[in-house]
């Protein structure tokens, strides 16, 4: 049995992609439980910070998704770890401060539009934590995008935000029952309170990931943004 601290739950179309931390030979590293037939879970009733017991078969996915492990049985929740402690563990796992170190490869910019990608064969992993000195979320035609500055001063623009909790929060903010001017109100929140709430959080942390190869390219995305959003923030705007 493996003990897994759930750190990522991301949206992948209608399904979820899950990543957790596993301690192995004194090291903490990320593993991605997948089903025998798919890379994602249609139903995943757990939260980040949950410690789950599971059986993971020693299977290594195709590069750069070397963290993949087949989950042979279901999950059993053991306990829950607070957010700040999750970040303490994340800091001990995959971590990089500069762009080339993130996935051990060169990242390329999209020549025709926005976004950054890695070549699947060049990247050595598909998830990595990093420290940001600034971060902004914005809406772009129903999509949520992140722009962030790494501690190295390098800037990443237009990363799709796939973090389940943040996506849920934004959808809740745009729900019809919230009344008029929802987009403008959310924009205001993202441009003001959001900045304060996230960047002033002492355990502010992000994890970036690479998509599965799509037309032979793996696109960068924002997998996790901690602190996770709180439902009561919706009352503030």
């Amino acid at each position: 049995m493996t003990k897994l601290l759930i750190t990522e739950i991301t949206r992948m179309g209608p399904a979820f992609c899950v990543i957790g931390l596993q301690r192995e030979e004194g090291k903490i590293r990320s593993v991605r439980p997948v089903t025998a037939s798919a890379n994602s879970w249609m139903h995943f009733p757990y939260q980040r910070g949950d410690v789950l017991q599971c059986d993971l078969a020693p299977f290594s996915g195709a590069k750069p998704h070397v963290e993949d492990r087949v989950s042979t049985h279901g999950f059993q929740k053991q306990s829950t770890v607070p957010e700040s402690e999750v970040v303490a563990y994340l800091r001990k796992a995959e971590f990089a401060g500069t762009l080339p170190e993130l996935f051990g490869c060169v990242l390329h910019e999209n020549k025709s539009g926005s976004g950054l990608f890695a070549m699947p064969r060049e990247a050595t992993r598909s998830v990595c934590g990093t420290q940001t000195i600034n971060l902004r979320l914005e809406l772009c035609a129903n999509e949520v995008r992140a722009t962030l500055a790494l501690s190295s001063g390098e800037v990443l623009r237009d990363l799709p935000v796939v973090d389940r909790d943040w996506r849920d929060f934004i959808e809740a903010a745009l729900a019809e029952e919230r009344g008029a001017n929802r987009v403008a109100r959310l924009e205001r929140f993202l441009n003001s309170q959001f900045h304060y709430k996230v960047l002033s959080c002492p355990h502010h942390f992000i994890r970036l990931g690479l998509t599965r190869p799509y037309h032979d390219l793996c696109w960068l995305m924002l997998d996790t943004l901690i602190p996770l959003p709180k439902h009561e923030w919706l009352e503030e705007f």
Partner: protein
Amino acid sequence: MASIKDENHWKRLVDECFRREAGPQTAVPDPAQDLIETGVLDSMGWVSFLRALESASGLSELGVLLTERTPSLESVFQVFKEAQTERLSPEPCFSYAAQSEARTSVYISSSCAVVGSRKIPSEEVDRAFGMPPGRLRLRAGIESLAYATENENELTLGARAAQQALHTAVCGAQELDWIIATSETHRGYPSLAAQLHSQLLARENCGALDVGGACLGLVNGLAVAQGLIASGQSRTIAVITSDVHSRTFKPGMVAGEFGGLFGDGASAFLLSAKNGTTPEQAYSLGEFFFGCAGQYAGAIRVADAPNGNLDVHFDGEALSRAAITRLEKVVREIELRSGIARSSVQGLATHQPNPRLVTLLAKQCGLPEDKFPLVARSFGNLGSSTCGVALDAILQSARRHQANQWGPIFTASLGPGLLFGGGWLVPA
């Protein structure tokens, strides 16, 4: 930016941006079609398409305005229409049409370029930096470098270029309303613009302004000058670049793979408001645009080291990759904004980090290499003056032909950061 009233212009922008995202052979879908639901674009492609449109149209809030709307071309056109209604409302604001009109009313009345008087074979520079002879020629394509003599510096080179430009335009320095200077090597005060002001004996109430941006400095300077003239507060402005790298990037201070690439030079451009006396043979400034691609910020950093040396971080490979990708992107953006095909240009005044990259850029752009004046091959990378010397060379070569044979000029450059900018000039 073209007037939002021009529906054909928007349709062209939308079609071009869509094809760039979806592929050149892809038919433009029915305007009402939901592009994501029908699988024409995925969400990454949709956002990428919108970002390209935002950049090309100048409507930077396009993505936000499309939130809660169907992802279709019809929605895009609808947002353009709404933006037009808003902008053409009687509120006191600059209309884009007026801005565009103002931009085209600035022309280059004369130009001049000079380089350091010492011509040094690149092998000699190899040796000085302790590199095997032939390295700069083989790896960077540099045949020789222009170095300043003992009596030359940023001030003398810049002043010489400016005086020659004034002389050519039969314009006295007292006619200047502003001197805009840029240099990536000049340090200290009085600043270069102030020193040039004194040297040229401009009027006391002629402004002196230093503009940064390193190799992007000329394009920055031209855009600032254009704005000052378009505002109606100035009529004649000298934009001057001057860089003397050979005193800064010396052997022992920086590695030869970096320092050996640079030469010394200057350029000057006299800009005037277009009026009844504008000569028939002149180029007008088109539009300029700028940005900063921060993902490449780590590729080059130069800072003062505590021992007085320069602390240079130079990731040549990453920088080359970034330079080619970005310069090509800027060229594409110019095409998109101006509606001018790159194949029709008189020449491209781009930054030239080294001649090898110019060859690569020409290949990437699908253009003959002779559209790019040979600056870096003979003189080295001249910093902010590379673009200036290249632009002057294109202007001089155009003047050897009838004005009706002149083509537009593209200019594109980069600076550490990674700053980027570009624009175009058209026969007046």
